[in-house]
């Protein structure tokens, strides 16, 4: 639904429509990044607010990459400010018993992702979940493509090791 008053700004309308179209993918990315529905939607909302406010700063180019960049930076800032506070980070169902079937598989991939370093998780998710090219991920993360590749390689190695059973001792000690 668009308000009549906004029709005057039809040039800006395209920008907003493009942002609107990106919301579902941003929610998916944020959820996988944070593994927390509430946090993820807060991040998406903050991303949208910031993007809309910075409309004048967007000089064309790939809007989607720009939005992923903002969200990734906001998430990094969030983690930094968390790191400075005493640890009150929610650890979701960490001690839940192992289950069989697809439920367990789903939780395993979630925990495997949680075991990654932030930059590796970001790179992996942007490639496999969001379908960005290596070049786009390099832009989002502000690093050379070679760095993206090594993050990706380490992420995949760590997830494989995790799923193959070399999990952190934490899970075995009860």
């Amino acid at each position, binding site marked *: *639904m*668009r*308000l009549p008053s*906004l029709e005057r700004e039809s040039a800006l309308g395209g920008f*907003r*429509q493009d*942002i*609107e179209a990106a*919301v*579902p*993918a941003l*929610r*998916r990315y944020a*959820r*996988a990044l944070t593994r927390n529905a509430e946090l993820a*939607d807060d991040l*998406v*909302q*903050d991303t*949208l*607010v*910031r993007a*809309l*406010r*910075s409309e*004048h*700063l*967007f*000089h064309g180019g790939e809007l989607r990459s*720009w939005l992923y*960049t*903002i969200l990734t*930076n*906001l998430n990094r*800032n969030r983690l*930094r*400010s968390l790191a400075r506070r005493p640890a009150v980070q929610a650890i979701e169902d960490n001690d839940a018993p192992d289950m069989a079937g697809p439920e367990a*598989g*789903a939780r*395993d*991939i*979630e925990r*495997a*992702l949680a075991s990654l370093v932030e930059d590796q998780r970001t790179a*992996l*998710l942007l*490639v*496999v*979940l969001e379908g960005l*090219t*290596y070049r786009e991920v390099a832009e989002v993360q502000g690093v050379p493509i070679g760095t993206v*590749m090594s993050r*990706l*390689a380490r992420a*995949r190695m760590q*997830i*494989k090791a995790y*799923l193959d059973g070399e999990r952190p001792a934490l899970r075995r000690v009860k």
Partner: protein
Amino acid sequence: MSDRDSPVTEDELHAYVDGELPADRRDAVEAWLSSHPDDAARVAAWRAQADAIRAHYGAIASEPVAARFDIDKLTRSGRSWRAIAAVAVIMAFLAGGVVGWMAHGASAAAPSRFDIFTSTALDAHKLYVVEVRHPVEVTGAERPHLVYWLSKRLDYQLLMPDLEASGLKLVGGRLLPGPFGPAAFCMYEGPSGERFTIYYARTDAPQTALRYRAGERFSAFYWVENGLAYVVSGPGDRERLLQVAQAAYDQIDKGVPAKTTR
């Protein structure tokens, strides 16, 4: 002798899985995989990981989008800065109190003006750059009012540089309690959310050239000119910060912003 014989690198295996491999190497990689079961197993594992991630999170993109993400609504709320100004003033007061108190504690050890101003400015920088909805009290859209108001409170004609040539837009500014009186603080933002701030405070310290202070995550450039101390703070990249500080310094030195604001 063909491409088939040249060894396949691990990077190529990733590129193969992610559809980034140049077409002329695909056959070579596939041949390699058929004769290297360990690599084939790794590739299969990476594909299974990607499938599991997509299976687990993919459906979120098909969920109906909640009203909170309505772009028109967000645009309007983004503009109603005045409605939240009261909250921002209280926050600035509380935050400034903390900064002022910390600076007070620091002054017991009689540090230099450079130390006092840069640590106060870096504290304010850290505090406000993470703010998404209330980073400033008065937005850059009201620039003339912002400059007038802060100049009046500091009793000093301030100059807010135009940093658009450096890719930075004025977000806005706020008044802060400083260690020796009121301080002005304005924030600039780049296209991907990087933020820089300029802190202004009256001082009787003598004129200085640009001086650098490296912090943990943020750094600052400081100088004093005509009874006013300036601190430009930003992310740790020294070159970029210097470029921004230099642009601000030059305009303030000349006494005019790079281009007149509308």
